[in-house]
């Protein structure tokens, strides 16, 4: 088992081992079956906590605190060696669980990378430097002469981020910009002729990129091994545990519409008014108003309607009719019908696409002419208030909702809206637009004795 150890001296001068593993190889340890499951569940709580934090739009400093707290609460062990073992074992178990589909891999990769990033940042700078060399990153520090020549620009970049170029930061690394996409993305580095000048404190990015790329490849390999040998070999022992671990934490995906099996076109207008969450109401209104929607909006609303129970033929008729003032029937059949059939899994690689969850919708940023994404996140205060009032939310409830929005708790804001509109509580909280719809229909049905 390859594990890097860096020694940290405590105040009492005892050497304390601090370890951040890279999970290069599966541990050749014997693990009890119960530990297999429990370790994984503890780690899953950490990852799920991270996922919630990201969804709520927490800032990096807040995430760092969150990660520290989550780790302490779920993964700490008085004996360092035991803690390392649990860390490594739980990671490898979850690899088995989350290697099996593209979407699971994406989620796991994202959460593990975030976890690693913040754990790395929490390390001391000597530990970080040591970990960097462990990764064998071949980037040289910038020479003094070169530093002098770009010092002004480096200072400008630091100040643009509200920081100052302290003497300690005089160590910069020059790396090809391709190696640090997230720093480039946020304009947090000076780039010149293809090279990025990375400050010591940004070095995290370099290491994290390596980590991410490694785990990504490892997941694909694990999936291969799982499907070819492990799943069958372990069908009486590990496989049932692995499969249970996955579904217990990822909720229903709403790809198969449930109790309110079918909705026909004539019902849509009505249920849109009563049971659509704000994001879908907005898209729906815009389609009616503009007789058009850009791609992002068509996907978000189209898949939602599929989850609500709109059959393919009805979906085609719906979009065709709405677009009719701007798009001739012929042009519709040529340019739009294919994509709708694609969403229902009738074309191309025949994937049956699942409606987007709140997490996914919140994470997109609508561009010019777009109306998708989460309105609680993107609408201006004025527009959001007006929209809530149109939905029938009382002015006091609007204040509560806006309070959640200001604290970037977008899903809580949507939950409060639900409660205000329906006059009943939603304890589970909203995390999927189709869940909002189903819960809404349930409430209305119990009130009226029929589907509204």
């Amino acid at each position, binding site marked *: 088992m390859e594990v890097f150890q860096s020694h940290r001296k405590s105040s009492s001068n005892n050497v304390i081992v601090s370890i951040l593993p890279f999970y290069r190889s599966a541990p050749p340890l014997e693990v009890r079956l119960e530990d297999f499951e429990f370790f994984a569940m503890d780690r899953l709580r950490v990852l799920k906590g991270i996922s919630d934090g990201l969804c709520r739009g927490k800032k990096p400093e807040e995430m760092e605190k969150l990660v520290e707290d989550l780790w302490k609460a779920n993964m700490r062990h008085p004996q360092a060696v035991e803690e390392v073992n649990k860390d490594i074992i739980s990671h490898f178990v979850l690899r088995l669980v989350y290697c099996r589909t593209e979407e699971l891999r994406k989620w796991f990769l994202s959460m593990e990378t975030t976890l690693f990033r913040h754990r790395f940042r929490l390390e001391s700078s000597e530990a970080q430097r040591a970990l960097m060399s462990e990764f064998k990153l071949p980037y040289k520090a910038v020479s003094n002469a070169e530093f002098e020549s770009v010092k002004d*620009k480096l200072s*400008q*970049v630091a*100040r*643009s*981020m*509200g920081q100052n170029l302290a003497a300690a930061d005089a160590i910069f690394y020059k790396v090809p*910009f*391709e190696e640090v*996409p*997230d720093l*480039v*993305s*946020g*304009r947090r580095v*000076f*780039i*010149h*002729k*293809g*090279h990025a000048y990375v400050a010591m404190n940004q070095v995290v990015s370099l290491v994290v990129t390596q980590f991410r790329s490694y785990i990504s490849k490892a997941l*694909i390999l694990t999936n*291969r091994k799982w499907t070819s040998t492990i799943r069958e070999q372990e069908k009486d022992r590990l496989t049932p545990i692995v499969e249970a671990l996955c579904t217990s934490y990822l909720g229903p995906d709403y790809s198969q519409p449930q109790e309110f099996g079918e909705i026909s076109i004539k019902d849509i207008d009505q249920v849109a008014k009563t049971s659509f969450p704000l994001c879908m109401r*907005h898209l729906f209104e815009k389609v009616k108003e503009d007789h058009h929607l850009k*791609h992002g909006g068509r996907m978000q609303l189209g898949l939602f309607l599929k989850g609500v129970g709109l059959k393919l033929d009805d979906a085609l008729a719906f979009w065709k009719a709405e677009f009719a003032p701007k798009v001739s029937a*012929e*042009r519709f059949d*040529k*340019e739009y019908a294919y994509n709708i059939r694609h969403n229902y899994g009738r074309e191309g*690689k025949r994937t049956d696409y699942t409606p987007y969850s709140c997490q996914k919708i919140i994470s997109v*940023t*609508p*561009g*010019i*002419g*777009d*109306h998708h994404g989460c*309105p609680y996140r*993107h*609408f*201006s*205060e*004025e*527009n959001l208030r007006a929209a809530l009032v149109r939905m029938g939310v009382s002015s006091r409830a609007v204040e509560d909702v806006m309070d959640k929005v200001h604290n970037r708790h977008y899903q809580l804001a949507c939950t409060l809206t639900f409660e205000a509109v329906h006059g009943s509580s939603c304890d589970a909280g909203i995390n999927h637009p189709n869940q909002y719809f189903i819960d809404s229909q349930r409430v209305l049905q119990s009130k009226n004795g029929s589907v509204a």
Partner: protein
Amino acid sequence: MTKEEADNGRDDMVIDVPGQANAVPDGFNANYLRIYYGKLFPHADMFKWMSYGNDGKHPGCDKSYFGRREFSFTLENDIYIRFQSFNSVTELENSIKEKCPFKIDIGPVYSVDPAKRHAYAQSGDNVFTPVERELVFDIDISDYDDVRYCCTGADVCLECWPLMTIAIKVIDTSLRDDFGFNHILWVYSGRRGVHCWVCDGKARRLTNEQRAAIADYFHVYKGNENSQKKISLPGLVLHPFLARSYTEVLKGFFEAKLLPNQNLLASEERYEKILEMIPDASVASELRRRWQENKRASMSKDDINIVRWEQLKSILQSGKQKMQGLRRCVEEIVFSYTYPRLDMEVSRHMNHLLKAPFCVHPKTGRVCVPIDPNNCDEFDPTTVPTLSQLLEELNRGGLRQDAENEWDRTSLGESVAFFRTSFVQPLLKSCKEGIENSYNAKLQQSKNDLSW
């Protein structure tokens, strides 16, 4: 030119129009296109470009390279065919001449010939997946409708076209100075925008994540009609890229051209839009009061927009302003009106198809000609050659025995010559050097391996 390119496929058809012998009525149809593809479309140069030096002459060439590139054709009647691939310039040319596509799109280079894609799995080792693709950008003037009053939607004129010119300047400078790219082709999209193709090897091999990072680096204008604040420039100073764009391009253009030409401060409706961007209500009110009292430009002979802009700047930059949000307010206003608005989705994914240069736009009849970024101020979209104009020019020249290089006797000649000498030739020179170098390196490597 290889032997394959010799036969041009003589097409002796000349259009007969009653009345004027040479006149060709405006229009866009298959007959016109047939002649265009027969005599004017630069098949051989497009092939040379797309081959990136892999013409089979050097032993280090990858003979399969051109054949793995996807093209897509939109035929008459909106029939759309994807995954077209060709193994030689002759195949490419013959297919275009035969099918007469109304639009040609260029996709990525895949791991295998797209014609064979069904034989490959979706995942695992032998996949059908993009392996190279130029870094591309798409800028459309209809995304600027909220800041131009002379035209809307698909229209464009010489008053608002300069918005595209400055977008080219900002992005082109950054691609070269910051990212170190050299082989950049800018193309007029035929109606209302521009496309950019970055063709360096490093650019073609960028991953989706790296493309997204570059797109995000350029992403400053955020939001749409639903959100209030579209440009936010926090921080004490601007990042060097933004600062350079502002001082070298945007500020000058805004103050000297856009402000007076679009009368941005002349009327209440228009100046309110700018006042809305000032976070301090008292400052906004003060300006509003002054401008309402002073409806006619009184003493000064200067343009009223410029006078008012100076007043705005002097209040906001007076140094008396301590409020946080006001520091960069002037820059934010200039950026909102002038900073490039890119279509992010186009740049992010390797598999995005983009229209090929030298296509003809169906709605305007204009050819998608290259634009010289060093002379982009001179580019005039209203004088770009149209299909009918070119055919008329051909007619005037009469029939020629030598059917090569017909474009030289038309207005297209200049564009093809520019394409060749400023883009294709330097690109090919660099590619061939690259092919030779890596071939020699491999030879050296195998020699080293063999040595004892």
